[in-house]
């Protein structure tokens, strides 16, 4: 690579080399499966967020006793549930709610985890030791159980509080990952150099260290997004997610806990299952492609 560089004719004007992010982007677009997945995701998001502007959530979740458990028809595209509510409308709103929470949780766990991991890894020593003990403790807590317990004690919750509860017990994975990377990076001379150049710890952590863990952050957060969709729908499925007035994909699935619904009324839960599966698969595809792009270091810039 070095040789190739030397052979190239240097242009006179200041040449801007491509940044790391744009290289990753290029790799992603080259991967066919990932590209298809990405397009699918963008379409779903556009469709869901777009239609939910038009759809009235209150109208959809209103109980209609005259049309309980109707199979798919022209009036109800995907039939109705035990309250006579339109499943298709719930699917759209549910996807929107599920995605919103998953994105919020991913962002919040990302921010907390990255900051925690960077600080712990950068300072090392006693600080690292104490911070890791705290993290270990959170790590061994059985997540599902604790979140269920929390959801049970918070009487009224909305998207934000629910996301906060999930975030409180989900930031550790990314923190640990970032911390081990930061531990390696901080030994490198560029960090030492920054110290001798008079940069503050804060500045070094966020302007020198952070860019060097950015690809790891992007990959991990993408994969976390998929996992969070699964977790959220799982909690809603158990009945510890959102109330029925704010349906999520898991709410539709939770109707299948009734054996009658599971056995005879597939239209209520199968579409939501497929949608969750497709969402998680395509986000994973994108995440894995990003991972390959950052791992292989097949840079062409």
């Amino acid at each position, binding site marked *: 690579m070095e040789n190739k560089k030397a052979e190239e004719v240097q242009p006179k004007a200041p040449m801007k080399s491509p940044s790391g992010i744009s290289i990753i982007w290029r790799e992603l677009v080259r991967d066919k499966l990932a590209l298809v997945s990405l397009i699918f995701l963008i379409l779903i998001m556009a469709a869901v967020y777009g239609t939910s502007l038009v759809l009235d959530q209150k109208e959809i979740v209103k109980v209609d006793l005259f049309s309980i458990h109707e199979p798919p028809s022209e009036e109800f595209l995907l039939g109705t549930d035990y309250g006579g509510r339109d499943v298709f409308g719930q699917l759209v709103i549910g996807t929107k709610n599920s995605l919103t929470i998953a994105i919020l949780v991913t962002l919040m766990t990302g921010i907390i985890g990255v900051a925690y991991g960077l600080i712990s890894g950068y300072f090392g020593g006693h600080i690292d030791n104490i911070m890791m*003990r705290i993290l*270990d*403790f959170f*790590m*061994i*807590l*059985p*997540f*599902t*159980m*604790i979140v*269920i*317990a*929390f959801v*049970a*004690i918070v*009487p009224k919750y909305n998207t934000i509080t629910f996301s906060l509860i999930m975030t409180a017990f989900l930031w550790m994975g990314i923190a640990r990952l970032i911390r081990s990377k930061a531990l390696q990076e901080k030994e490198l001379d560029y960090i030492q150099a920054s110290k001798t150049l008079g940069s503050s710890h804060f500045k070094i952590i966020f302007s020198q260290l952070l860019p060097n863990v950015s690809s790891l952050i992007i990959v991990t957060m993408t994969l976390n997004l*998929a996992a969070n969709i*699964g977790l959220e*729908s*799982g909690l809603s*499925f*158990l*009945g*510890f997610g959102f109330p029925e007035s704010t349906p999520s994909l898991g709410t539709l*699935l939770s109707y*299948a*806990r009734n*054996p009658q619904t*599971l*056995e005879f009324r*597939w239209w209520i*839960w199968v579409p939501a*299952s497929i949608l*969750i*599966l497709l969402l*998680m*698969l395509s986000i*994973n595809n994108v995440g*894995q492609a990003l991972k390959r792009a950052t791992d292989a270091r097949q840079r062409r810039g």
Partner: protein
Amino acid sequence: MWKFTLRRTLIMIPQIIVLSLLIFVLAQLMPGDALSGQIGPDVDPERLDEIREEMGWNDPWYEQYASWMGGVVKGDLGDSFRFKMPVSELIGQRMVNTFWLSVATLILTYLIAIPLGIASGRYNDTWRDQLITGYTYVGFATPLFIFALVMLWIFGFKLGWFPTSGSITPGLEPGTFEYLMSKIYHLILPALSMALITTYSTIQYLRNEIVDTKHKDFILTARAKGASESRVYNRHILRNSLLPIAAFFGFEITGLIGGSIFIENIFGYPGMGQLLVESITLRDYTVLTATTLLFGVASILGALLSDIILSIVDPRIRIK
């Protein structure tokens, strides 16, 4: 070695104390208590207050915590108001069920993971490997509860091959052969559903481990010495790759606990996971705190076990 084990075990003590405090505080914060649902025209509110006073529910929190912990240490977890029996007795029945479900799941997980992982690693980048990798890929992306629902739908309801709820056919005499078979019969579908989904991490780990080891110098040396291919795999590669799997055994416990909550609720299997969800719905907080504490302690012990096995298998982690 002993130093590491001792230090690791000492760390566990504060972990358990903090966990118990957390659970206790959570329980205190929960709205209402087991009596608040019983308020009705024929119940005297003053009588309820008397019961509360008798039960010590009006004492300061630290006294309640102390008496609760004192009981826990002696094995007394309090009484369940809803099930009208001591919690330890209630949990005892459920725990046995969950224990066997976990054991069955673990056995199935390893039965699936080890052959597939070895095949995938040994013949990497062949069609066989691609098939297995594809399975782990989908397994990774599929939420356990959706998969379990589909399994129940197909094998339980549509095909009718397996029972759709419970842990035993009613009316059988404990100790008989039929009783045992019925237990196993009820276990298979839930355990298989969980194993098929959770196995992907072990397969992936084993595959990567074998692919890595394959190209290490000591394997090349073994080949150069003329060892047969099966000897290279059985004696050299597998020994190096399977040991870490044994160490992850402890971490599996945390995963099993999370999984059992879903599985038991879907398959109507009367275990701890189902009890946990029931106790929240019924506001039976003595049961809730007890299950949560037991699950938490099990996770902590699992992590301890894994760390100790790992330190035996891989001496590097002892030096931190």
